[in-house]
């Protein structure tokens, strides 16, 4: 993509968002789509969040337990460090990178298919604000459900660490539990939730943009879906850097 092409895309995205972020034509229809979005994008993502968080949580604890083995550091450090990693970065940033693959490609391919089969044109001809009707409920439902996914992820990550301590015994379960409670700052949880909601907005809106602007056929829908995942991943990482500096720096 050329530099001018990228600038143009930003302009198209901004003008699309102006149409998306307007009052829905019919609130009843918006709510129907919102609830559908909560189920399809949110509830259907719980299983992947649970599985990945459990195993990554277990691996984080295992790695720290094996590599941070110094008489200078108390053993509960494993719990403290694991908790901070899971709360601050894994449950928000890494989980959103994974979800951008699942949810982002789902949104881009659904809207892209509607575009190439003329279903979006049907909405436009009827006088429906198609961008608003198709994208806003998905953005709103995903952002609204994001805190639930993050909390699931945090819990399962910490639980994965608990299980590994239970199995290996180093550190002991008691030490680990003490560690994950030590020096706890509630603000880290809120920081993580707010950050993930911001990522949720990026994932759904960027995927919506790629799907909505598809031109061509099935191959182009596939390309749009892949592009949305790639761009979302980059945007999440850049936003993470900026947001961390602004919120914690």
């Amino acid at each position, binding site marked *: 993509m050329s530099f001018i092409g990228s600038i143009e895309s930003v302009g198209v995205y901004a003008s699309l968002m102006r149409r998306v972020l307007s009052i829905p*034509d*019919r609130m*009843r*229809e918006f709510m129907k789509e919102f609830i559908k979005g909560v189920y399809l994008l949110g509830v259907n993502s719980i299983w992947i969040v649970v599985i990945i968080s459990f195993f990554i949580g277990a691996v984080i604890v295992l790695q720290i337990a094996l590599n941070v083995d110094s008489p200078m550091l108390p053993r509960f450090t494993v719990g403290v460090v694991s908790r901070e990693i899971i709360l601050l970065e894994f449950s928000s940033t890494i989980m959103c990178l994974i979800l951008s693959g699942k949810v982002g490609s789902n949104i881009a391919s659904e809207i892209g*298919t*509607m575009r190439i*089969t*003329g*279903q979006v*044109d*049907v909405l*436009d*001809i*009827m*006088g*429906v604000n198609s961008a608003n009707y198709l994208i806003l409920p998905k953005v709103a439902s995903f952002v609204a459900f994001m805190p639930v996914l993050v909390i699931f992820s945090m819990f399962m990550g910490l639980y994965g660490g608990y299980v590994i301590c239970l199995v290996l015994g180093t550190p002991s379960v008691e030490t680990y539990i003490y560690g994950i409670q030590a020096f706890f700052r509630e603000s880290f949880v809120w920081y993580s939730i707010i950050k993930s909601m911001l990522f949720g907005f990026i994932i759904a809106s960027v995927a919506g943009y790629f799907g909505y602007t598809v031109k061509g056929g099935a191959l182009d829908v596939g390309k749009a879906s892949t592009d949305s995942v790639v761009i979302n991943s980059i945007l999440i990482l850049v936003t993470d850097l900026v947001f961390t500096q602004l919120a914690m720096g």
Partner: protein
Amino acid sequence: MIEVKHLNMEFEGDTVLNDISARFEKGLVNMIIGKSGSGKTVLLKCIVGLLTPTSGEILYDGRNFLTLKTRELRRLRRDIGMLFQGSALFDSRTVLENVMFPLDMFSRKNSRERRKRAEFCLERVGLTEAADLYPSEISGGMMKRAAIARAISLNPKYLFCDEPNSGLDPKTAQLIDELIEDITKDFMMTTIVVSHDMNSVINIGDKVVFINEGIKEWEGTKSEVMDADNEKLNDFVFASDLFKKIKEAEDIISEDKKG
């Protein structure tokens, strides 16, 4: 009535429509015919507002579609029904839900009345038995009928059909043609059908506009199509052996009468 005046459309320097002017009458099936790539679908897309022409006017009962304010435009759009080439039904909704969609979005009727209206539209196109099926579960002909039912659910004044018979067998194509004609007469709509199917022209085309390479070459009634004195139109019409033979038979009969 819809009137198009001096419509021009260019894509990246290429002229796709060149000074098209035509009138499409109320209560008639107005057909735009031409070869593939002649610009007929672009013309239809300009008329319904999916494309913005480079210059010209599009008048819906005297109102210029291109200069209407957003609110007036949205109001006018509710008077428009469109049947797409591929039907464009919403995959995630059943046939009944597809027909109810425009009503759900724009009608002030209550839920029971909306459902009743959708069922009436499905009955009108003979598709009551498929109401609870999804688009993927019905045939191409049924999809077209469902799309017609959806297009007429808000009782529009204008109906547009883009290649309504594409991909259908001759019998089903005829059924769809008859349905479009009946609906046009029953509801006194201004109907514009884009097609390259000469059978449709002969079946239902009250008025015919022929477009070739973005230029309006000919305009007349279906009875005049066979005897038109336009080389390009004749090339198009008699490209089919069937119509060539009909023409030859007609010529023989008229010579016999003279003799």
